């Protein structure tokens, strides 16, 4: 396993991870596309992250459980941003940047945050309970959903499993050769 890690282009863990909360590939549905503004007024699309593993976190500044999870996500961003991973926060604060910017500054949030809206929340199943967090694989599919405060281990294991899936799934013919797409 170590020899394989040395010649791969991305860093890899010495252990193979299978997170309990991550769906099998055939059960993952595409994550809905959105266009939301970040703190600099730039429009952010989910498709901008194609090829990366994304942790999409719906949160609010008045949400206690969200404040517990956000430092975990900051750590995940620090540890994995060079492995094709990104955290994207979606604030559901009605007051917008007026309250969100100071909140992000106070916590030292090191990842991109956009302001969400009811339409986007609706596309993601009607996000009402916060935090609601989605793990999205490199193909833009929802691999896991956590509603409410989850465990740090659920996130770290889920992220690691999705990061380790660097090669697309290969379907073999009966003769053992890869099927042409």
């Amino acid at each position, binding site marked *: 396993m170590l020899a394989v890690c040395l010649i791969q282009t991305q860093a890899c863990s010495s252990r193979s991870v299978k997170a309990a909360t991550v769906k099998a590939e055939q059960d993952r549905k595409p994550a809905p596309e959105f266009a939301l503004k970040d703190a600099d007024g730039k429009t952010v699309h989910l498709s901008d992250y194609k090829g990366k593993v994304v942790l999409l976190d719906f949160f*609010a*500044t*008045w*949400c*206690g*459980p*969200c*404040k*517990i999870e956000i430092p975990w996500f900051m750590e995940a961003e620090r540890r994995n941003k060079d492995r094709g991973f990104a955290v994207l926060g979606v604030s*559901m604060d*009605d007051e917008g940047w007026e309250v969100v910017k100071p*909140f992000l500054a106070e916590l030292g949030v090191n990842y991109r945050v956009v302001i969400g809206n009811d339409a986007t929340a609706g596309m993601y199943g009607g996000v*009402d*309970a*916060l*935090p609601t967090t989605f793990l999205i694989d490199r193909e833009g599919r929802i691999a896991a959903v956590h*509603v*409410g*405060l989850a465990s740090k281990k659920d996130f770290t294991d889920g992220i690691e499993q999705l990061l380790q899936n660097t090669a697309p799934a290969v379907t073999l013919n009966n003769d053992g050769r890869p099927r042409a797409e």
Partner: protein
Amino acid sequence: MQTKIPVSIREGYHVNSNTPSEEYLIPLKLTWTSTGALEGGAVVYPKPALEKFDFSDGKPISVFMGNFDLVASFKVAANAPAGPGIAAGKLRYQACSNKACYPPKTIDVSVPYQVQ
């Protein structure tokens, strides 16, 4: 005069009290929008509970749970005409369970009265 306004929080949930433990928490708050022939006075909230939750990082937070009453005081205006009326207000709250929080909501409150 005083009137009780009953509030009922579903089991498994709580709302922040009117004096939350942290600045970022949204308090329970009753405000009057129109009181007709009455003049709205103070609102008395019950004594809150201090409870720990999975997300409170070991610290107790100031909340209301279960059934409780808000006590609203009114004065009859000096030139109030006799007859019925309604004092209308808004109750703002923000609820959580042990693991998740829900958007703040505002509901209508109405108190019918009769000036004699």
